[in-house]
C-alpha cells in the first residue's frame, strides 16, 4: 500500500472511531441511544432560549466596536478558548492512556510519524466539532437576530479549536518530558481543570475585589478596564473583530491557527509515538505506600470506611474534580470575607453557590463509592448485608462533604448564624439527593471509568444537576422570602420523586 493510501485509510479509521465514540459519549448504552439523542436534540433546541436571553441583545451590535465591546467580546472569546483548551488536554491525555490500539499501531510496519499526524488532526477535528456544537445555539441566535455577518463567529470557533488542540498537544508532551508519564495524567487533568475554571474564577475574584459583586461584567464594563485596554487597531482585538464579521482579520486568524497546528504536527508527531510508547509501557513498579504498620480494622464497617477513604484520597480523577469544586468556592469565600467589612447583601449569593457545589461534588463522590467498585465480587461474597455496605458508602460521601464544606460553613456562622444553618441544611439535602440518585441508578463500573460516568445514565446526570440547582435556589429563596421557598422546594422534591419513579432500582 502506498503511503498516501495508508494515510487515507488511517484517516478513515480514525473518523470511524470518532464517529462511533460520539454517540457513546453522548448517549451511553446502545439500547437507550436513540431516545437519548432525541432528548439531546430537544435539549439543544431549548438551549436557544437561554442563549437568546444572554446574547440576544448583542445581535445588532454596531461596528466598528467601541472599547467596552472590544473588552467584553475578547474576554468571552478567551474564556471559550480556555474551555476548549481544557477539553483538548483531556482528549490528548485520553489518546495517550485510554486507546487500546497503540500497541497494534506501533507494532505495525506503517510510518508512525504520518499516522500520528492523522491522529493529531483527528483530535483537532473532534475538539473543534465539540466546540461548534456547544456554541451553535449562541451563533444561531446572533445569525437570526443580526444577519449573516455573524457566520464569521463559526470561523473563530474553528480557529479556537485548532489552536487550542495545538497548545494542548504541546502542553501534554512537555508535561511528559518534564514529569514523566506516571504523573502526567494527574497533572494534565488538574491543569485542564484549572484552565477551564480558572479564567472564570479569576474574573469573578477581580469583580468581587473591585465592585463587591460576583458579576464578571461589572469589571469588564468598568472604566478602569476600558482605560487599560489597548488601542482599537491592536492585534489583540482581532478575534473580537472577526466574530463580528470582519473577514480581513478572520482569514489571517484561521490561517495562523492552521499553521500553528501544522507546526505542532511537524514537531510533535515523531515524539507522539515515543511519548505514547512511554505511557503504554508504564508497567513500572507501583508507588510505595507509607507502610501499613499494624492492622487496625476491627469491624466490617470500619474496613469499608477505611478502604473508601484510602481510595478517594488516592484517586487522581477525584482530586482534579475536587480541586475544580474548591476553585469554584473561592469567589463565594472571597465575597464572604468582604461582606464582613461592609455587611453586603451579596453575602446571600454564597448560599446557592455552596449548596450547588455540594450537590455536584456529592454526585461524583457517590458514584465513586457506590458504582465505582473495583472488586465487586469480593464485596459481594463478604458476609455482610447489602444494607450495611450501602450505609457505609453513604457515610463516606457525607463525611467527605462535611470535611470539604465545614470550614466555609464555620466562616458563615460568624457572619450570620441563620444563613449558616440554612446553608448547612441545603448542603446536607443536596448531598443526600445526589447520593440517592446514584444509588437508584447504580451500575457496576471500574473507578477508572469515572470520566464517563455521565454516559451510563443521562437521566441520572440531569436529575442530579436539576436537584442541585433546585436545592440551591430553595436555600437562597429561604433567606430572602421563606414562604416563597416552599414551592421551589416542592418542585425539587417532585424532580427527585420523578427520578425515583423512572429509576431502574425501583423495580
Amino acid at each position: 500500500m502506498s503511503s498516501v493510501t495508508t494515510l487515507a485509510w488511517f484517516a478513515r479509521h480514525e473518523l470511524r472511531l470518532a464517529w462511533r465514540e460520539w454517540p457513546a459519549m453522548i448517549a451511553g448504552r446502545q439500547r437507550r441511544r436513540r431516545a437519548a439523542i432525541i432528548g439531546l436534540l430537544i435539549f439543544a433546541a431549548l438551549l436557544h432560549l437561554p442563549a437568546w436571553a444572554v446574547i440576544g441583545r448583542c445581535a445588532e451590535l454596531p461596528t466598528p466596536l467601541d472599547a467596552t465591546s472590544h473588552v467584553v467580546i475578547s474576554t468571552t472569546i478567551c474564556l471559550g478558548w480556555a474551555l476548549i483548551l481544557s477539553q483538548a488536554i483531556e482528549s490528548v491525555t485520553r489518546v495517550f492512556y485510554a486507546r487500546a490500539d497503540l500497541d497494534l499501531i506501533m507494532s505495525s510496519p506503517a510510518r508512525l510519524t504520518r499516522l500520528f499526524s492523522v491522529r493529531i488532526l483527528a483530535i483537532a477535528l473532534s475538539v473543534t466539532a465539540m466546540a461548534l456544537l456547544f456554541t451553535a445555539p449562541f451563533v444561531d441566535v446572533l445569525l437570526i437576530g443580526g444577519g449573516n455577518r455573524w457566520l464569521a463567529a463559526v470561523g473563530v470557533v474553528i480557529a479556537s479549536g485548532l489552536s487550542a488542540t495545538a497548545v494542548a498537544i504541546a502542553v501534554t508532551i512537555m508535561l511528559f518530558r518534564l514529569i514523566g508519564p506516571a504523573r502526567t495524567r494527574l497533572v494534565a487533568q488538574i491543569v485542564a481543570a484549572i484552565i477551564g475554571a480558572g479564567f472564570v474564577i479569576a474574573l469573578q475574584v477581580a469583580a468581587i475585589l473591585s465592585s463587591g459583586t460576583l458579576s464578571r461584567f461589572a469589571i469588564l464594563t468598568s472604566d478602569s478596564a476600558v482605560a487599560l485596554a489597548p488601542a482599537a487597531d491592536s492585534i489583540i482585538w482581532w478575534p473580537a473583530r472577526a466574530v463580528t464579521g470582519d473577514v480581513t482579520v478572520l482569514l489571517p486568524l484561521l490561517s495562523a491557527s492552521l499553521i500553528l497546528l501544522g507546526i505542532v504536527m511537524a514537531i510533535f508527531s515523531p515524539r507522539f509515538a515515543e511519548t505514547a510508547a512511554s505511557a503504554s509501557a508504564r508497567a513500572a513498579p507501583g508507588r510505595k505506600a507509607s507502610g501499613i504498620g499494624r492492622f487496625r480494622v476491627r469491624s466490617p464497617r470500619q474496613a469499608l470506611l477505611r478502604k473508601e477513604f484510602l481510595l478517594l484520597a488516592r484517586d487522581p480523577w477525584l482530586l482534579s474534580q475536587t480541586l475544580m469544586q474548591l476553585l469554584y468556592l473561592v469567589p463565594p469565600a472571597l465575597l464572604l470575607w468582604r461582606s464582613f467589612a461592609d455587611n453586603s447583601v451579596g453575602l446571600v449569593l454564597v448560599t446557592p453557590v455552596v449548596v450547588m457545589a455540594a450537590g455536584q461534588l456529592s454526585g461524583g463522590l457517590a458514584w465513586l463509592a457506590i458504582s465505582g467498585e473495583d472488586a465487586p465480587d469480593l464485596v459481594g461474597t463478604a458476609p455482610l448485608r447489602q444494607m450495611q455496605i450501602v450505609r457505609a458508602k453513604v457515610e463516606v460521601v457525607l463525611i467527605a462533604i462535611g470535611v470539604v464544606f465545614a470550614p466555609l460553613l464555620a466562616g458563615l456562622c460568624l457572619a450570620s448564624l441563620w444563613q449558616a444553618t440554612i446553608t448547612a441544611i441545603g448542603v446536607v439535602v443536596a448531598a443526600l439527593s445526589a447520593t440517592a440518585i446514584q444509588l437508584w441508578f447504580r451500575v457496576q463500573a471500574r473507578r477508572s471509568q469515572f470520566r464517563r460516568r455521565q454516559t451510563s445514565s443521562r437521566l441520572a446526570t440531569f436529575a442530579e444537576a436539576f436537584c442541585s440547582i433546585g436545592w440551591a435556589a430553595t436555600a437562597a429563596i429561604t433567606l430572602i422570602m421563606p414562604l416563597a421557598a416552599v414551592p421551589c422546594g416542592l418542585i425539587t422534591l417532585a424532580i427527585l420523586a420523578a427520578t425515583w419513579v423512572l429509576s431502574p432500582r425501583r423495580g
Partner: protein
Amino acid sequence: MTSELAALRVRGLTRRFDRPAVEALDLTVRTGEFYALVGPNGAGKTTTLRMVAGLLPPDGGSISIFGIDALRDPVAAKQVMAWVSDEPMIYDKLTPEEYLEFVAGLWGIAAARAQGTARQLLISLGLEAHLGERCEGFSKGMRQKVALAGALVHDPRLIILDEPLTGLDAVSARHVKNLLGDRVRAGCTVIMTTHILEVAERMADRIGVIAAGRLVAEGTLAELRQLSGGTDHSLEELFIALVDPEAAVA
C-alpha cells in the same frame, strides 16, 4: 455419602439468561475434597459457582454449604467460604497488605490474627518484596496471587475458584497449586473450574463434567474412565467424548 459430610450440596439449581444457563443441576462436594468442574465454554460452570458464592440469585433450586441454607442465610454461608474469579478484582490504589487488611475487616477477623496470616500468605506467594507497593503496577500473576491471599486470609472452609490459573506463568501457577494442595490437606474444601485438564487430572479428587447447564458425568478419573469404557484414556479424551462425541470419533 451423608449430607452432613457435604461441603456443598446443590439441588435443582436453575438459572436462565436469554437461554437456560444452568438447568436443574444437582451437585454434591464432600468436605475436604478437591473438586474440579470442567466443561466447554458457555457450559454454565461460572454461572453455577457464582450462584453458590452468592453473587447471582438462582431462578430455582437450593444451595447448602456445610448444612447452611445459602439462599435463606447468605451471610452465614459467606462467612465460611471464599471466592476467587479468573479476573483478579483488587484495588489498584491499595497495597497488598492494605487489601488483606480490608478483606480481614470484611470477614470480621481480629486484626492481630489477620496480620500474621496476611504476612505469611504474602510471603508464601512470593510477594514479600512488594508488600508496600500499590497493586497498580502489578502483573496479572501478581494480582491473582494478591486476590488468592485475600481469599485465604479469613481461613475459609470452602474455597471456590473460577479459572485461577489463567494467565499465570509456570512458577506462579506452581505457587497457587501448592497453596491449594496445602489447604486441602489441612481439611479445607476446594472447588475449581479449569480449562487446563491436566491440572484437574493431577490435583482433583473428583471431577465433574458440565455441558449445556447439566452435569453430564462425575467421579474420580478412574470412575470416569470406567464410564467411557476405556482404562488408559486421558482426561482430555474423556472430556471430548463426553461433551462432543462427534469430535471424539473424528
